[in-house]
Each structure stands twice: as C-alpha cells, then as structure tokens.
C-alpha cells in the first residue's frame, strides 16, 4: 500500500488542461459528423419533431431513397470517370515532364520548372479558359471537362524533388541493358517513385472529386453532373427532408473518409510539401 502511494505522480494540471481543450475541439469537429450519421438513420417525422434526438431505429430506407432519388449511380459514375481519367492523364504527363527536368536530360530544365510554377502567381485563368472551351466546342462536354483537370504545377515540383533522390546510375545500367527511354520510365522509374506518385495522384484526385465551381460553369446537362453538383441539386429539391439528404451526404462522405484514413500519410506530407515549396 505504501509503495502505491510513493509511486503515484502528482496531478499534472498541464496535461488535464491540454485534454480539456482538445476535447472541446474534438466535440466541434466530431459533433457535426455524428449529427450527420444520426440524422441519416432517422425518419422525417422523427426529425421534424426533434432534430437533435437520437435515432430510435435504424431507418436504412433513407439510403436507398437517396441513392435512387438523388440519381447517385449516375453522378458517382461520372465523378469516378472524371477523377480517374484526369488523374491518370495528369500523372503520366507530369512524370514525363518531371523526369527529364530532374535529370537534366533537356536543355533549360530549370526554366521549364519555373514556367510551371509561374501560373501560381498570375491572375485566375477562369474566364479566358471558358472562352477557349466555348470556342473549341468543349463547353458542356465531358471530354472538355476532363481536360480542365490535367494540370497541377505543385505535383510536378513534388515529382522533380523525389526523382532527384533516385540514383542516376540506374539510368546508366538500364541503358547499357538496352532499355529505351519510354520503357525505363514506365517499368523502372515508376515503381521506384511510387510514394511520390501516390501523393501526387491522391491530392489531384481529391481536388477533382471535390470540385464544385467548374462543373457549375461547364456542365449544363444533368447527365454529365459529378456528385458534387448532383448533391447541390438534390439539396435544392430535398432541402427540408434532412434524413434523406443526410443519407446522401453520408454516402458521398464515406469514400473520402476511407481514402483519407488509408492514405493519410501521403496526403498530409504532400500538402505540407506543396505548401512549403509553393
């Protein structure tokens, strides 16, 4: 008994205060998410009677209702098509810009890198971009929409920095073995720079997945809407039916949360690197 008294540490007020403050923040951060989940399982009359009460039963019909009425299959498919194809095009073209720049295989590589960064310090491209897409007949056109997401200067900076850490002897060895430029990049370099590719691709994909302004500007046909735009339309129609709306928002949120939890390291490191470099 005596020993337990002796080893007991004094109350650490700093630690308690830290936890108290963090807990308040945690409530502000988790509260809205919990409210969303709770509402998604409630019935509309339940919600109207008391918006904050706990769901008494698991009313999963909200999800099927949101799924069909919000036209989710179509919007989700569109978003997936846009995100995957634009990210793939971007990542491949970016690697073929970053690799020769990092290696000095082209003349004026540093100027090219500067050229890529300079757009970050120029006025927004929105209006001339729209005029161009209009003139090219790419307005309200999924292909044109995908084209808008094939550029991201920060990703190129991240790739250049990472490729510089890959020993150049690999290039020499591969060349002696008779590998061509294209084959080297695809089959030797890409696997080696996988962490950087993951970071760049995930950040780019998240941006496309979340984009709301560009689909509002460029896509007028409902059949082309991505999930973000579809969600806003759904909100306009079902604005007062929060249980169904919450179920829809939850369906849209879950993939992002899962991707985030799995790839958190890449996302955070990529965003920090991008911020410090930019």
């Amino acid at each position, binding site marked *: 008994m005596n020993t337990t008294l002796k080893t007991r540490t004094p109350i650490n007020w700093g630690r308690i205060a830290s936890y108290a403050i963090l807990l308040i923040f945690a409530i502000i951060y988790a509260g809205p998410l919990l409210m969303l989940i709770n509402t998604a399982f409630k019935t509309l009359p339940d919600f109207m009677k008391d918006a904050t009460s706990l769901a008494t039963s698991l009313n999963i019909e909200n999800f099927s209702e949101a799924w069909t009425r919000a036209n989710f299959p179509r919007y989700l498919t569109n978003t997936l098509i846009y995100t995957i194809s634009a990210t793939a095009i971007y990542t491949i073209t970016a690697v073929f810009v970053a690799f020769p720049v990092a290696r000095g295989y082209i003349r004026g590589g540093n100027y090219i890198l500067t050229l890529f960064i300079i757009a970050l310090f120029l006025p927004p491209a929105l209006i001339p971009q729209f005029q161009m897409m209009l003139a090219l007949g790419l307005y309200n056109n999924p292909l044109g929409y995908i084209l808008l997401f094939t550029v991201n*200067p920060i990703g190129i900076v991240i790739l250049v920095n990472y490729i510089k850490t890959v020993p150049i002897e690999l290039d020499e060895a591969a060349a002696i073995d008779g590998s061509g430029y294209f084959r080297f990049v695809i089959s030797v370099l890409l696997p080696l720079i996988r962490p950087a590719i993951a970071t760049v691709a995930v950040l780019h994909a998240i941006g496309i997945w979340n984009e709301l302004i560009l689909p509002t500007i460029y896509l007028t046909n409902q059949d082309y809407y991505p999930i973000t735009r579809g969600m806003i339309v759904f909100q306009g129609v079902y604005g007062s039916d929060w249980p169904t709306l919450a179920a829809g928002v939850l369906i849209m949120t879950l993939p992002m949360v899962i991707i985030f939890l799995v790839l958190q390291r890449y996302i955070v490191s990529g965003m920090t690197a991008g911020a410090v470099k930019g």
Partner: protein
Amino acid sequence: MRTGYHFGSGWGRYIPYLFLIPGLLLYLLIALGPSVATSVFSFTDATGIRGAPINWIGLENYREFLFLGRASQDNYAALGRTLVFCFFVTTIQFGLGLLVAVLVNQRLRGTSIFRTLFFLPVILGAVIQGLIWSLFLYPLGGPMARILEFFGTSSQFFGGPPPEAFASVIFVQIWANMGFTMVIFLAGLQTIPDDLYEAARIDGASSWQVFSNVTWPLLTPSVNTNILLNIIGSLQAWQLFLVLIGYRNGTQVLGYLIYAQGFGQTSGSVTSSFRQGYAAAASIVLFLLVLVLGITTQNILRRREERILG
C-alpha cells in the same frame, strides 16, 4: 549540373523532349495561356455567348467597376467584406491552429486521433463541409440552436441577417481549414530539437517561457508560411458562400461577385449576366489586391525573420 544522356544518341537525344510535349502543351493551354489572357479580356466586352463579337473597350470595365454609382458601391462593399473575411479567418485560424498543434505535439495518449480528426475536414471539400454544417446549424431545434436557446438567445445562422450569415460562414471556413494550418505548424514543431527543450527546462524555465523563448522563435518559418497561405487563400475563398447561403445581398465577397458576373447571376443593382469582360476586370482587381497584400505581408515577415533568426 548537366549529366550525360544515356538512352541513345543522335536523334535519340530528343526523345525526352518528345514525351515532355503533352504535359507542357496542356499546361500552356489550360493554365498559363488563360492566366495571361485574363488581363486582355478585362479590356473587352466579352460575353459567355458562343460566336458573339468581342470588342475592345479599353478601361471601361475598370471605370464601371470602380467608379460607376450604385454598382461600384456594391463592389466596394464586397471588397470590404473580402478584407473582413480575410482578417478574421487568417487571425483565428492561425491562433487556433497553433494552439492545437502545440497541444497534439505533446507526448500524450490519443494525439494521433485528434490530429486525424482535425485534419479530416480539409479533404472533404466545400459541398460536404457546407452540408454538414447546414445540418448542425439547423435553426429549428438543431444542436447549436438548442445551445443558444439554453442561453436565452437564437440565430437563423445561414438564413439570418447578413452579418449573422457572414459570421457563420467564417466559422465554417475556419473549421474546414484549421487542420491544414495545424499540420504545417506540426511539421515546424518537429524540426525543433528536443535538447533545446531539455536545456530550457534544466534552466528552470516555465512552460510559457519555453514556448515564447524556444518554440515561437524557432517556429518562424511555419508562422510565415501559414500567415501567407491563410491571407492568400481566404482572399480568394468563396465556395462555402455558394453552398451555405448562395448569392445574397450583404454577404457577397469579391470571388463570388466575379463568378456571378461572369457566369450569370444577379448582383445587387446590376442584373446582367455573363459579363465576362467585366468579370475579368474584377478578377484583375482581386488579383492585385492579393498581390499587394501578399508582397507587403511577405516583406514584413521577412524583416521579422531576419530580426529573430539573424
């Protein structure tokens, strides 16, 4: 530092150029070209109608934006709101982000859960962020309404009078992006060597003295990054306004005004739509505002850094 090219000789040396072209071309076409052209369009009466003639009208758009009666008063009001938004978002997000970063950087159990939770909203995007808070701030018996009710007050939040709606958007904007500020501070905190803290503690420094004499000065690079990013980001942010309150008089910021003028929505006393030349001029005004504030801030921060870090 140029190194030899290994994958061929003669014409083969140009293969890297060939594969670089798609990426470069896309960049010039989608980003750099249009960026540069914005100032050109600001001197025209371009509309959003395909095939409509575009005329050179000189400084007319700027004159209208800055000096033409009611419309320009609305613009100055939007400009003022943009600065107010920027001020509150930057200062509060900076302060809270620093506080939270210092707290979760301690050796405490569960800090990684807190970090994950605080960063999560950053990747959710404006639509989800906005809808989540529309629900939480549901004025008829939602959790926040209940809390206010308990204190004998009430609010319509996003549907309330303009200042109330505006303040609510500032709140959500900070909630959504504080995690990013926190992460940059955390990266800075992790570069501070442990022995500095230990030395300070051995000298008998209090927690506050450790923070103000060790942590804060050594955190200067992250402080600079965060202040600049917050200022530049919040001056241009307006997506949450779109999701949470729409284009409502008394709440518009410049970014939203540009979008509304260029892509069709009514604005205060001006009710024309697709005025893309005018919107281009407005976006040049916003761009100059960002540039001037950004450069001024950077100069102040650099001078401060030289003073602190020598």
